[in-house]
């Protein structure tokens, strides 16, 4: 062929002849169809095999077992009544309750410790920042399981026996059987305090909105923080006094065979709570440090130049920007903590994994149903927390034009 000669087999508006395989649309459809068929085939096979295997092993399927009597005892259930005659359904509820208690308290403590350590890490004080540095490096590089064992078998198990408990005053008495804390006794009318507390929060919110509107309109400020604090704390106290002090604390009394009365917090719970919150705090500390460092120094200087005092500058300029960096990774740490609470199974704290995916599974043998329920529960918690945090994050995020 002569060089430079372009031979065209089709005119411009005619479609070029492309191999069907190279047509992205056809190719995409084929890939998706093959994938879908493969997945359906896989699931069909799995379900089919499971049905055959279960029938052969003589294991019942379905969720009837939830109504059957469990027949084993649990040593920790603060809010749900549980006896050996309770059903597997109740076991599930108790497990979920214990997981949630652990997760919520763990998140609170981890956040507090994490923020303190993270700020300490940035301190100009050399000793303080070094201690914070080594706290982070040591705790986050040792497996959590090992840390739980250390707290449980290494520290709490070495506490004195029941007879010579350590007296911690208002907190209660501590010994190898756990912490014997004062137990609140609610008499009639106690719920008024709770409602007063809620009303305090609602009122604070309303006042906050009103104060902001007024400041926008007139420039006058209103001490929202102090008013809010007064309302949130004051209303419940008022309700407490008005209803005739319906809440009293029952203190544990030392007896010959250890403390009696009060509320026993089992050592499994204490060690898990310590291990989970200190471990997660190490990660949160790094997140907080990164968040604070992410705010440009110019922001501080600019807000000072605008005449803001250090307090309002921190509150109105620095913290909102730092939070924007902190919140997304913080969310995943909260989720990690919740999922890590399943390590409770190591020391037999009756959480969801230990009592339901452990004991109940072994007794009924209904692995598919129980594991599915357990996993979906964790999945639901995870999704709920991420939805909430995504909403919060969207609220905090930079509003760009």
């Amino acid at each position, binding site marked *: 062929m002569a060089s430079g000669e372009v031979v065209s087999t089709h005119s411009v508006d005619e479609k070029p002849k492309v*191999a069907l395989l190279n047509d992205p649309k056809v190719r*995409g459809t084929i*890939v998706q169809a093959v994938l879908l068929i493969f997945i359906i085939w896989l699931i069909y096979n799995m379900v089919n095999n499971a049905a055959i295997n279960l029938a052969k092993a003589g294991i019942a399927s379905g969720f009837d077992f939830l109504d059957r009597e469990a027949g084993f005892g649990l040593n920790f259930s603060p809010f749900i009544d549980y006896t050996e005659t309770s059903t597997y359904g109740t076991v599930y509820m108790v497990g979920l309750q214990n997981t949630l208690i652990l997760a919520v308290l763990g998140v609170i403590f981890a956040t507090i410790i994490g923020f303190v350590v993270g700020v300490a890490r940035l*301190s*100009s004080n050399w000793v303080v920042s070094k201690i914070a540095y080594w706290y982070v490096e040591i705790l986050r590089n040792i*497996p959590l399981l090992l840390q739980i064992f250390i707290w449980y078998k290494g520290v709490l198990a070495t506490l004195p026996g029941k007879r010579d408990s350590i007296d911690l005053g208002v907190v209660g008495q501590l010994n190898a059987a756990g912490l014997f804390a004062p137990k609140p006794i609610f008499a009639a009318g106690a719920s008024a305090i709770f409602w007063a507390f809620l009303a305090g929060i609602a009122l604070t919110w309303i006042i906050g909105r009103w104060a902001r509107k007024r400041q926008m309109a007139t420039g006058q400020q209103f001490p929202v923080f102090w008013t809010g604090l007064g309302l949130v704390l004051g209303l419940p106290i008022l309700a407490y006094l008005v209803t005739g002090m319906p809440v009293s604390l029952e203190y544990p009394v030392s007896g010959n065979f250890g403390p009696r009365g009060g509320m026993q917090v089992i050592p499994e719970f204490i060690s898990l709570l310590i291990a989970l919150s200190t471990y997660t705090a190490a990660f949160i500390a790094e997140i907080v440090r990164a968040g604070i460092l992410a705010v440009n120094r110019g922001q501080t200087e600019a807000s000072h130049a605008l005449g803001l005092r250090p307090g309002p500058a921190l509150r109105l300029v620095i913290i909102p920007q730092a939070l924007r960096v902190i919140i997304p990774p913080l969310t995943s740490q909260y989720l990690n903590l919740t999922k890590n609470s399943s390590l409770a199974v190591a020391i037999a704290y009756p959480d969801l994994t230990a009592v339901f995916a452990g004991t109940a*599974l072994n007794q009924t043998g209904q692995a598919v149903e129980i594991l599915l329920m357990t996993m979906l529960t964790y999945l639901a918690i995870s999704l709920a927390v991420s939805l909430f945090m995504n909403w919060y994050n969207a609220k905090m995020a930079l509003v760009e034009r």
Partner: protein
Amino acid sequence: MSDTDSQTALYRAETGALEIAFVREQMTKPMPAPASEVGVVGWMRKNLFDGWFNTLLTLFALWILYLILPGILNFNFFNAVWSGTDRLACSDVNQGGELYEGWKGACWPYIGAYFKQFIFGRYPDAELWRPILVLIMFFAGLIPMLIPSAPFKRENIIYMLGIFPVVAFILLTGGNLNYNGFLLPNAIMADSALKFWVDYVLLTAVICGVVHFIVRGMDGDSRRPIMLTIFAMALLGIVIFLSSIDFGLRFVETPQWGGFLMTLVIAVTGIAASLPLGIALALGRRSQMPVVKLLSVIFIEFWRGVPLITVLFMSSVMLPLFLPEGVTFDKLLRALIGVALFSAAYMAEVVRGGLQAIPKGQYEGAQALGLAFWQMMNLVVLPQALKLVIPGIVNTFIGLFKDTTLVVFIGILDPIGRASAIRATSDWQGIYWELFIFIGAVFWIFCFSMSRYSMHLERRLKTDHR
């Protein structure tokens, strides 16, 4: 002539006459800073006792250190027993030993006595050279790969990803696996090693046929895809063949493995499997094909939403139910599958972060050059994206490394599992701190050095996106 002099001269020239009586022409030496501002004292004033609040903080921190450190140091080093053969070496007078009453310290001979178990589990003594050889081969391949200036990177990667896994598998298990046929019915040919290979060739032919059919059906050129298929099947065949040869090694079943060997096996297999899987999932999640995207999202969110323990429970209790009758998996293999899927989901999110960080212009530029999807990914996007997420990948790996300890719940004896078994023996009763400290220290050294290395790499690879 110095600067000052020339300035003076200029001044003279400009004014015409010099009326200033004295002009300093030489700078005096600066005075040394006050003693309280330099050296140790100055440093302490600046960093420790800067204002009443800092002073208070320093004192408080020092007090906390005073409470914690002496106890730890005394227990681990100064009061510790370093040699001995049994429990008696670490007993005080009351317990029948020679140490003074109320002695408290670490009993290190105890760790020494069980050191082998911590590293290799119950691997038979006569065969111990095998795991040792595997560990040596592993680190011999790993260390030159980690040093950026070491030569032969390409060969090194082929060794680590191709040769080492096969050799390690054969060395650890003993190889000599039996493969029987899987395709033809027994009526035609009885199960034997020969039948397996006949079946294997048949299967290859069938796959080639299918590939040819699909590609021809869409007017494509089928030669290259078929050559690729044959090449892949041949490679897989060589691996299978090697694992079926009798090297005269004793078969060591996986329940006999344990200790840190187990940790390394699970972590390394997990990361090796999860990286390609994670990249595939990340690409799937950003794909424009709705089915692929949806499946990837469901997969990733499911595994990320559940705790690893339930995944391991699932792999040990539920997975056998899903397999056809008569097919059984080794417990370790089941755990490995669970761990790999679990960490693949996390890896996918890390990689996705990298993919999102690549400017759109890079994708468009690659497409403008006429690159196809996989060419674009392999040549332009992934090299940049993966470089960005190296810290994330290392963090996932550190997490995986620590999480391997959870396999103890399905009865695989990693260091923590061995520790519980050892604690139950009677000759070293009542000792537990040493176990925790030893295991914790080993994990800590591994994880800490990994995070340090990733920070180093991050700095090395840092290029600005401009």
